[in-house]
C-alpha cells in the first residue's frame, strides 16, 4: 500500500506451479539458468520457455499460493478425509509380561475372541511356569526343567499369538497407541500391562551380591550357584517370600540364617501370631532367625559374603538372598501418563487405567492405592479385561479378601 499515492505501487511477486512436476516459478527469484532475471513477471516470460525441471511449457503452469499447514490441517476433518490405513489396520491386543498374569490374559482373551491378533511382549524367555513352585522346587529338589509347564513357543502356537521373548518394553506413546520395545515399535488397539513387580532392593544391598528370586531365570541361576552340596544361605527379609524360601531351602538341605528388622517373621500377620507359629514349625529345621536387625553392609570377603548389621553382628554366607519386598517399575506407566498410586492405579470394577485402551492387572496394579500380589485374583482379572476387550457381557471385577497359605511343610499356616 502506498498511503500518499505518489510513487508507483510495485505489485507483489507471484508464484506459479508446474502442473507436471510441481516446480514453483517465483517471480521474485526468476530462473537464472534460463536467463530470466529475478523480478521477471510470469507474463513477461517468452512462450518458448520450458520448465527447467521437466521441460513442459509455460501454459502448463498455474498460479500458486503456498499453503499454510494450519489452514490445510483445519481442512482435514479429524485425521483426514478418510481414516488412514495406519489407523484402519487392526493392530490387535498387546500384552506386556509373560508371567501368570500375561498368559492368563492371553488364554481368556483367546477364549473370548478367536480372531483378534494378540502379541505378547516379555523380557524373559516366555515359558509358562508357576511362580509359587520356585520355592517348593528347592525343598523337593525338583529338576529345573520340570518347572516349565509349557514352553513359550508352544503356548504361543496353541493360542495363535505372537510371542516376543527377551524383548524389553521401554515406553508407551499413548496418543499414537504405540509400544516402544528393544525389538522395534509395536502398534496396539488395546494394551494390557501385566508386567508384574520387581524386587525392591534397599541401597545397602548391592545387586551384584544379593539374589532376588522373583522369576524363573533368576531362580535357575541361584540353583546353579548353590550346586549340589549344602550351603550357608543368608536371607534378608522374613516376610512371606523370605520365610517360604528359608523353609524350602532348609528342607533342601541348606543352612539358613534369616534376618528381619521386625522381632518375628511374618510380622504383617502379628495379630494371628503367625511368627510364633512359624518359628515353632521350623524347630526341626536348620533355620536361625535373627530379628530386630537392620543390614548395614554386604561385602565379598574371599570366597564368601559377609553381612554386617547396624548393631554390629556379622554373618558369613555362601549366598545371600534379598526378600525385601516388591515395587512396580514405573517406566511404562509414566511414559503413558497413567495415574499412579504405589502402582498402576486401576478402576476397581473394570481394571482400566486412566488412559483409554490401556488395562492393567496382576502384581503391577493397585486398587485404592493397595497392591494385592497374590495368585487367586489373576484369573478373575483376566476374565474382566478379556470381556471388555472382546465386547462381551461385562464381567465386573470383584475384590475379595485374600487367604494366604504359608507353605511350611511341617505346619501349614493359613492367614487372612
Amino acid at each position, binding site marked *: 500500500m502506498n498511503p500518499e499515492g505518489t510513487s508507483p505501487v510495485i505489485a507483489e511477486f507471484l508464484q506459479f506451479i508446474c502442473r507436471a512436476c510441481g516446480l514453483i516459478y517465483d517471480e521474485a527469484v526468476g530462473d537464472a539458468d534460463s536467463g530470466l532475471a529475478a523480478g521477471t513477471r510470469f507474463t513477461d516470460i517468452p512462450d518458448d520457455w520450458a520448465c527447467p525441471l521437466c521441460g513442459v511449457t509455460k501454459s502448463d503452469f498455474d498460479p500458486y499460493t503456498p499453503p499454510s*499447514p494450519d489452514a490445510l490441517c483445519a481442512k482435514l476433518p479429524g485425521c483426514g478425509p*478418510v481414516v488412514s490405513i495406519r489407523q484402519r489396520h487392526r493392530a490387535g491386543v498387546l500384552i506386556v509380561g509373560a508371567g501368570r498374569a500375561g498368559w492368563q490374559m492371553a488364554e481368556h482373551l483367546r477364549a473370548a475372541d478367536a480372531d483378534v491378533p494378540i502379541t505378547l511382549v516379555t523380557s524373559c524367555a516366555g515359558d509358562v511356569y508357576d511362580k509359587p513352585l520356585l520355592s517348593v522346587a528347592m525343598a523337593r529338589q525338583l529338576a529345573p526343567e520340570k518347572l516349565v509347564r509349557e514352553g513359550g513357543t508352544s503356548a504361543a502356537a496353541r493360542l495363535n499369538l505372537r510371542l516376543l521373548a527377551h524383548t524389553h518394553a*521401554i515406553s508407551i506413546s499413548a496418543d*499414537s497407541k504405540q509400544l516402544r520395545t*528393544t525389538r522395534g515399535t509395536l502398534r496396539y488397539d488395546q494394551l494390557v500391562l501385566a508386567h508384574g513387580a520387581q524386587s525392591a532392593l534397599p541401597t545397602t544391598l548391592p545387586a*551384584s551380591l544379593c539374589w532376588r528370586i522373583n522369576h524363573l531365570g533368576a531362580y535357575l541361576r541361584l540353583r546353579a550357584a548353590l550346586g549340589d552340596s549344602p550351603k550357608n544361605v543368608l536371607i534378608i527379609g522374613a516376610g512371606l517370600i523370605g520365610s517360604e524360601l528359608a523353609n524350602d531351602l532348609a528342607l533342601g538341605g541348606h543352612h539358613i540364617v534369616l534376618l528381619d528388622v521386625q522381632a518375628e517373621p511374618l510380622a504383617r500377620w502379628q495379630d494371628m501370631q503367625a511368627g510364633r507359629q512359624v518359628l515353632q514349625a521350623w524347630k526341626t529345621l536348620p533355620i536361625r532367625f535373627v530379628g530386630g536387625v537392620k543390614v548395614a553392609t554386604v561385602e565379598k570377603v574371599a570366597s564368601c559374603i559377609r553381612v554386617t548389621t547396624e548393631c554390629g553382628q556379622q554373618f558369613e554366607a555362601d549366598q545371600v538372598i534379598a526378600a525385601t519386598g516388591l515395587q512396580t517399575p514405573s517406566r511404562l506407566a509414566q511414559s503413558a501418563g497413567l495415574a499412579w498410586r504405589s502402582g498402576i492405579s486401576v478402576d476397581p470394577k473394570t481394571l482400566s487405567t486412566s488412559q483409554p485402551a490401556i488395562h492393567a492387572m496382576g502384581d503391577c496394579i493397585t486398587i485404592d492405592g493397595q497392591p494385592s500380589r497374590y495368585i487367586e485374583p489373576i484369573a478373575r482379572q483376566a476374565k474382566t479385561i478379556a470381556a471388555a476387550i472382546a465386547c462381551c457381557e461385562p464381567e465386573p471385577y470383584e475384590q475379595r479378601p485374600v487367604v494366604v497359605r504359608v507353605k511350611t511343610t511341617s505346619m501349614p499356616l493359613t492367614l487372612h
Partner: protein
Amino acid sequence: MNPADILHECVVPTLPPADELLAAVRSVAQGQLKQQVDAIDRQGLYPHAILKELAKAGAMSAHLDSPQGSGDYFLAIQAMAEASKVCGATGFMMWCQAVCGLYLQQSGNPALMGDVLTRHVAGVGMGGTALSNPMKSYAQIESLLLKATKVDGGYLVNGTLPWVSNLQADHYCGAIAAVAGSSTEVMFLLRCNAPGVALRECPSFSAMEGTGTYALRLQDHFVGANDIIADPAKPYIARIRAAFVMLQCGMAVGITQGAIESMWAVEPQLGHVNQYLEDRPDTLQAELNALVARVRKMAQTPFDSSNEFFIDVLDARAHGAELCLRASQSALMHQGARGYLMSSDVQRRVREAHFVAIVTPAIKHLRMEIARLSAEEMPA
C-alpha cells in the same frame, strides 16, 4: 598474527535470548544454507563460513554453562533442528561442534577450559567427536581402536579411526584410547595438525558429503597433560553420556519437520490421492510434538547419570530416528515424481534420515544398549 586480534575474536558473545538465537539460526538456514545445501550434500562442500555464523549466533554453545547460568540443552536442540530442517549435514556438524564444546567444558582441565573453549564457542576453533568407536566399545559392541602407551609426561597414541566428522586440517576432536597394560582409557583432545596425526579422505557417501569426514591415522602421537580431557575416561563418559546422545535429537526433529512440511506443500494438488497413504502430515506432526515435549523435559536434567534416565534418552533418540525414517519416506510418497528429482530436498531427506538411523548410536545399537541396561543385575 596480532595477539590482540585473537583476543578480540575470542570474546564469548553474550548469549542472546532464546527467540533471538533461534531467529538468527533460522535466517542463516533459510538464507545461505538453503542455497548451498545441494553442494554440501553432493559435492562435498564443507560449509565453514555457515558453521562459523551459526557458532557466532550461539547455536552450538547454548547448552554450555556460561557466566549467565547453566546451559539450555533444549535451546541447543531446537537450533540444531532449525538447521537440520534445511540441511541434515549441517545439523550433524552442529552436533559435532556442540559435543566437542561439552567435552572441553566438562574436562576440568584449565588448559582446555580457557582459550581453547573460548575460541571453540566463538566458532574460531572447530571440532568434532571421535567417540563412535569408544561408545560402541562401552556398549560391548566392538573394541577400542586407539592404543595409548604411558611415556614420560603423557602418552603415545597409535591406531586408526574411520569416519570422524567436522574435521579440517586445523580442526580437532575428542578421542579415547585404551591405555596399554591397564584396564583404563584416556580421553584427549586430538588436533588434526599435530605431529603423528594424518587425515585421510574417505570414500564417497550416499549423502551428506560435506561433513568434513575423514579417517584419522595416529602414529606415535604424543598427548601431554594440556590435552587430557579425562583420565580415566569411564567416569567422565558416565557423566556426559546422556547429554551426548540427547543433543542428537535435534537432527531427527529437524529432518522430520522438514519432511512434514514437504507433505503439506503438495496437499492442495495431491491431497485427494495422498489420503491413501499410511502416514499423514497431521498424525506425524502430533507424534513429533509428543517426542519434542519428551525431549524438552529430559533437557532439564542432562547430567542425570542414572541408568533409568539414560534408557529414556536412548529411547527418545531411537524414536527420533524411527520417526524421521517414516516421515522422510512418506514425504517422498506424498510428493511422487517431483520429490524423486535429484534436485528435490524430499529425496535428499530420505538419505539424511538413513544417516540419523545408522550414525552411532544407530537404532540397533540403541536397542541393544537399552536391553543391556534393562537387565536386572544378579550375583555372578
